C-alpha cells in the first residue's frame, strides 16, 4: 500500500511549487494510473515515493513503513522504472541485472530463474550479453523494467513506462502489470496515454499544477462529471481546463 500524507515539494529555493499538500492512498493489489499535463508534478511525486526526493513537508508511507524514517526497508519493497532509463553503459545487460540482484540480495539460483523468465518475457535474450551503451531506447526501457521487476517487488512504480516500447513489449508490460496486481502487488504508473489508463487502471489520479484534483475509478469520475459515456481523455481535458481557469 502506498500512502502519501500531505506531501509538498518546491524547487529553486521555494520559487517553484511542484507538489502542494498532496494526499493519496493506493491499496494493495490496486493498479493506479497517475495522469497530468506536462510539468504538473507527476515525476516529482514519483521521485518522492521512491526516495529520490525528500518531501519538504508530509510523509510517504509504503506498506506501513515511513520511507523517510526507514529508507532501506522502504526501498526493498519498491521496484522503479524511471521515465528516462539511466543505466551503466559500460556493463553488459546481464552484468547490470546481476548488480541489481546483488543490491537487492536476490539469491543466486532465484536470480538466474528470474532473469531467464523476464528476459524471455521482454525478448531481451539476444541483448543481455551486449554492452548497455549499444542498446536502442526501447531495449534500454525493457532492461530498466526487467531490473525493476527482478526482486519481485511488492510495489512497482513506473514513470511513463510505455514510451519507447514496441507494441509487443507494451502489451507484455500491461499484462505483467495486471498479473502483478492479481498477485496482490501494488502498481503505480504515470502516463500520457489516456487509452492505456482507461483500459488498465482500477483507479486514476489527476494532478494539475502540483495539486491532486481527482482520484477515483473511471466510473466515479464520469458520474461526478455527469457524463456517463465520456472517455477518460475528455474527462481529463475538462478537469485540467477547469482547474487552469479556476486559477
Amino acid at each position, binding site marked *: 500500500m502506498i500512502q502519501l500524507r500531505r506531501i509538498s515539494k518546491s524547487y529553486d529555493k521555494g520559487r517553484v511549487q511542484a507538489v502542494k499538500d498532496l494526499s493519496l492512498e493506493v491499496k494493495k493489489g490496486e493498479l493506479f494510473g497517475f495522469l497530468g499535463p506536462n510539468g504538473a508534478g507527476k515525476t516529482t511525486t514519483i521521485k518522492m515515493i521512491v526516495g529520490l526526493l525528500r518531501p519538504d513537508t508530509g510523509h510517504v508511507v509504503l506498506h506501513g513503513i515511513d520511507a*523517510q524514517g526507514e529508507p532501506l526497508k522502504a*526501498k526493498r519493497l519498491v521496484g522503479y522504472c524511471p521515465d*528516462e532509463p539511466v543505466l551503466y553503459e559500460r556493463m*553488459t545487460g546481464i552484468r547490470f541485472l546481476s548488480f541489481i540482484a*546483488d543490491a537487492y540480495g536476490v539469491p543466486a539460483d532465484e536470480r538466474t530463474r528470474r*532473469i531467464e523468465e523476464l528476459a524471455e518475457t521482454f525478448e531481451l535474450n539476444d541483448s*543481455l550479453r551486449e554492452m548497455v551503451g549499444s542498446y536502442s531506447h526501447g531495449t534500454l526501457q525493457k532492461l530498466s523494467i526487467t531490473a525493476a521487476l527482478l526482486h519481485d517487488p511488492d510495489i512497482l512504480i513506473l514513470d511513463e513506462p510505455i514510451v519507447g516500447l514496441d507494441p509487443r513489449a507494451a502489451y507484455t508490460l500491461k499484462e505483467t502489470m495486471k498479473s502483478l496486481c492479481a498477485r496482490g502487488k501494488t502498481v503505480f504508473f504515470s502516463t500520457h496515454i489516456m487509452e492505456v489508463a482507461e483500459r488498465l487502471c482500477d483507479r486514476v489520479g489527476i494532478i494539475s499544477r502540483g495539486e491532486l484534483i481527482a482520484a477515483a475509478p473511471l466510473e466515479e469520475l464520469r458520474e461526478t462529471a455527469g457524463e456517463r459515456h465520456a472517455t477518460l481523455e475528455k474527462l481529463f481535458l475538462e478537469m485540467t481546463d477547469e482547474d487552469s481557469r479556476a486559477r
Partner: protein
Amino acid sequence: MKTLALAEAVIRGTTWLTPDGVRDLLRRGRLLTVTAAGLGVLVGLAMIVFMLVGIYRSLLLAGTASGHPEISIFYGLLGSWVFLFLTAIPLALSVLYYSRDLRLLLTLPLRPLAIVGAKGAVMYLTCLPVNAVFLLPAMCISVRASGITASAAVSGLAVLVLGPALPLSLAVLAVLGLVKAVNLTRYRIAFEAVGMGLGIVLVIGLQAILARSTIGLASGSSPQALTGIAELYTRISHALPPAAWAVSGFGTNPGVFPLLLFVSVSAAALAAALGLAPLHFLSDVMERREAQGGPGVARRGRSGVGDLPLHLWSPARGILRSLLAREWALISSNSTFLFKAISELLVLPLLLGVYGLILPRQLVGQAMGTISSTPMLSLALMGVVALMTSLTTVSSTSLSREGRRMSLSLMIPVRGRVQVWAKLVFHLLLFYSAYLVDLALGWLLFRFPPVSLVFMLPGGLALQAAGFAAGIFFDLKRPRLMWTHPQQAMKNNMNAAAGIGCSAAAILLIVGPFVLGIARGLNPFAMGCAAGAAAIVLAGVLLPRLFAFADRQYAGGIEIEG
C-alpha cells in the same frame, strides 16, 4: 547565413558564454563556482605562459645573436601548430561525428556544408585563444626587445588570426581519412590515448628545451647552444615554409610577398577542409551511427559466447564486488574519466622520468645523494608518496561522476556506508597499489632502510584512507550530478579542488610534525612509527564519521532533481 546562424545556435546551446547563460548562472547561484573554476584555469594558464616566457627569452637571445630575431615567434608558432594539430584531431572527431546535436541537425533541412561550416567555425573559435597563448608571449618579448614595426604588426595580426587555419584544416583532413580507414567507434579511446600521449611528449619536450636552454645559457656554454638552435631553425624553416612566411615580418628582411603566401596557404587549407569534409559527411555520420546501432539491428542471431547459459554470465558476487564492478564501469564509461585516473595514478613516476630527462645527470646524482643521506628519508618518502597518490580527483568526484545514474545508487536498498566503503576499497585498489609501486621505485632510487616498511606500509594505508575520507566529504555533501559534459563532473568540479585540498591538509598535518621531530634530532624510526600510528588514529576517527554521514546522505540527503 545558415552556417552563421547554426554556429551561433551551437554556441548558445552548449555554452554559457552569452548574456542569457550568465543570467542563468546568476539565477542558480553558480557564478561563484564558475568564477572560482575560471581562476583555476587562469592559474594554469599563468604557469604555461611563465614556462613559455622562459623558453622564448632564451630563444630570442639565441636568435638575435645569430641574425634571426624572429626565431622565438617561429618556435611559438611551431609549438602552437603541433599542439593544435594534436588536440584538433579528437576535437574534430568529437564535434563532427560524436556531438549530441547531430541527432537534431541531421533531421533539419541543412546542407552538409552548413553543418560542417558551423562546426568548423566553433572549432576555429576554440583554437584561436590557444594559438594566442603560444604566440602572444613571444610577440611581447620580441616587441619589448626590438620595438614594433609596421611589418611586425601586420605579420603578428595575421598569425594570431590565421594561425589555427593550417593545423585545424590538416586535423580535419586527417579525421576524414581516419573515418574512412578505421572503425572509430571501436578504436576511439585508442585514438584519444595516442593524442594524449603525444601531447604529454610535447609538454615534456618544451620542459626539456626550457631546462636545457636555461642551464646552458647560465653555465656559459651559450655559443654552442646558440649555433645549434639557429641551425635547427634554418632546417625547420626550409622544411616548413608556411611557418617561415608567417613570421617573416619579424625578421631582418621583411616583405609583403611571404606574408601573402602564408595567407594564401592558410585560406587554401581551410577551403580544402571545408570543400572535402561535406562531401562524405552525411554518409560517414550515418555509417558511424549504424555501427553503434542496437543489437536488435546488427547483432541478432550471433552465436558463440551468446550460447552460454545465463548463470555463467550472472554469478552472484556479493554486494561489495558488485559495487566495485560498478565503480569500474563508471570510470571506464568515458575516456575523460579514464585518462584522468590513469594520469593521476602515474603522476609520480612521470614526474621522476621528466626530471630525469631534463636535468643534467650530475645534478640528479647530487640530488639523489643528498636525499638518500637525510635521516628523514623514509618518513618524508611515505608522506610525499602518500600525498602524490592522494592528489586525485577520482575519489573527490566519485559521486559526481555517477551523474544522473546516481538515482540508481539512491534507489537500491544498500546503505550509504556500504556504497562509500566500496568507493574506499576502489580507491585503495587503485592508489594504494600505486603507493606500493612508488615506494618500490623510491627504494630503487634512494635505498631507504627496509625496516622502515614497518611503518611505511600501514602508515601509507591509513594516510590514504584518511585522505579519502577528507577528500570525498564535499562530493558526498553536494555532488554535481546534472552535468552535460564529462569534464564538468571531474576536471571542472569544485568538489575536486576542495577534496584534494583537504586530503593534502590531512596528510601534511600528520606527517609534518614528525618530520620536524627528526629534524630536531629525534629517532627517525620512532618518529616514523609515531606518524604511522597517528595516521591510523586519524583514519579511525574520520572513517566512522564519514560512514555515518554517508548513511544520512544516501537516505535522503542527496536529491535528484530535473
